[in-house]
């Protein structure tokens, strides 16, 4: 099988939710000598991009999106030992610490964003839901994160994003970029709390994260 064929097969596995089969394809790609970055960008990432586009155009729905996310996770598990090595990690776009802010237990939007970011080639550290500002700071510091991405659905919890930006500033993590996500987040709010960018949907969030991350090898 040619390298292009295996990359196409990887893309198809993500688009068709082949959770088990994708593992073998990643192994095969590695045996063929493909670098993790190629596998992610030209195989898995292409698949997730297509899934995201199909979701936006109404061809795919939430079950399809979450099934593709599960398939991406399955593929990344195979690559995890390689990516954990310094030379492997350097192939990623950078580390993102992501979570739903304190007081908010909604996770679906955050999970969609995490899956797309993973597919795009970020090292995604998902802190889950109801995450306190201090925890964002600790994890960003511990993982040398390029980006802290926060999600909030409720109008009452959106202000807690400001606590996180303040805590990052207090910890002098000024180099860490802050990305806000959530349907109701506005430009005014983003500017008010000193965030670097905001996105009302996950696909936009991925594009913004690419821009915020800058070049590789600096995480």
């Amino acid at each position, binding site marked *: 099988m040619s390298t292009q064929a295996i990359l196409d097969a990887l893309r198809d596995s993500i688009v068709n*939710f082949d*959770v088990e089969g994708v593992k073998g394809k990643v192994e095969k790609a590695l045996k063929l000598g493909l670098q993790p970055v190629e596998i992610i960008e030209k195989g898995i990432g292409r698949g997730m991009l297509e899934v995201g586009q199909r979701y936006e155009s*109404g061809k*795919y*729905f*939430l*079950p*399809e*999106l*979450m*099934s593709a*996310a*599960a398939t991406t996770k399955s593929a990344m598990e195979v690559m995890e030992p390689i990516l954990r090595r310094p030379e492997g990690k350097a192939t990623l776009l950078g580390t993102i610490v992501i979570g739903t802010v304190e*007081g908010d*237990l909604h*996770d*679906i939007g955050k*999970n969609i964003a995490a899956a797309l970011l993973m597919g795009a080639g970020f090292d995604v550290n998902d802190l889950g839901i109801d995450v306190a500002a201090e925890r964002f700071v600790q994890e960003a510091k511990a993982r040398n994160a390029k980006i802290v991405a926060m999600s909030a659905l*409720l*109008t*009452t919890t959106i202000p807690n994003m400001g606590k996180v930006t303040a805590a990052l500033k207090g910890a002098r993590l000024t180099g860490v970029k802050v990305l806000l996500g959530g*349907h*109701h987040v506005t430009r005014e709010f983003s500017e008010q709390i000193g965030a670097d960018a905001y996105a009302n949907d996950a696909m936009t969030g991925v594009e913004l994260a690419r821009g915020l991350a800058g070049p590789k090898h600096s995480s």
Partner: protein
Amino acid sequence: MKDPKTMLEVQLRNLREGLSWGGGLFVDWGILIPPSAFGAPVRYDDKHMPWIEKPIVKEPKDLEKLEVPDPDRCEPMQKAIECYFYLKEHAPEDLRESVEFFPLLGPIDTSALLRGTSDFMSDLLLHPEFARKLIEIATEANIVWLRKINEIAGGLSVVKLGDDYAGYVSKKVWQEFVFPYEKTIYDTIPDTIRWFHTDGPRVQQEGVLESLAEMGVDLLYGLHPEVNLEGAKRRLQPLNIAMAFGIPPVDILLRGPVNMIDEWCKKCIQVAAPGGNYALGPSGGDAPGTPIEHYLAVITAAEKYGKYPIKT
């Protein structure tokens, strides 16, 4: 939330100020029942509705541990019943007839809360039998609870069912995993008026709105702001299904200003009210912190533009 006395006071205050969409009193335990009746842990705080804190179904074998709750023995259901009788006893006399339970949380949302939304959504495609079994158990719990509240109420005239995530699936998944179970629940109590709510914008895909007629739905309420009001009206009016939605709860109702709310309400009424079968209302739940003046602006607009014949 846990205190029926506070619940009554708050609802009476809202009613006095004309700020209740329903116009009556209800056991406001949000989405607690039935997921909490299965043992899912609940988070309470001062600012939000109670919420199921974490899923309890991690793998298929956990389904065996799920017992359909018995309303006569299950604590959350017993508490809700106690609350219902408290409201009945302590409400002003003219409002006692209006006391009711919160709309049923349908089998899709119940399953999503028990399993975790992301995992449940992928189960629908990757592990359909697992998902189906969970939905069947959730449906059974809905039916048992519905029968109980029907008995307590001395015969329900309206059955209200809400399944937010049902509106995020394809028509194929809807037909297989949503439609049959929602219909079974409604059919438990025949000859009732049927209200249905879902948050998902995909409910407007071809064939799904139409299938509501087969479910016997009379009113569709609180739909996602992305649902096209004009399109929904065009498709639902021939089926004699009424609608109650149209005002985005955050972008319009929360943020205002008042003149924008007035304009928005006017447009909703002009589009959806001709021919009847429309109630002006929010698309989705109310956003905490919405100023009272904004609600009053809706009432003013309804009075101003909502008189028949509607001026378009």
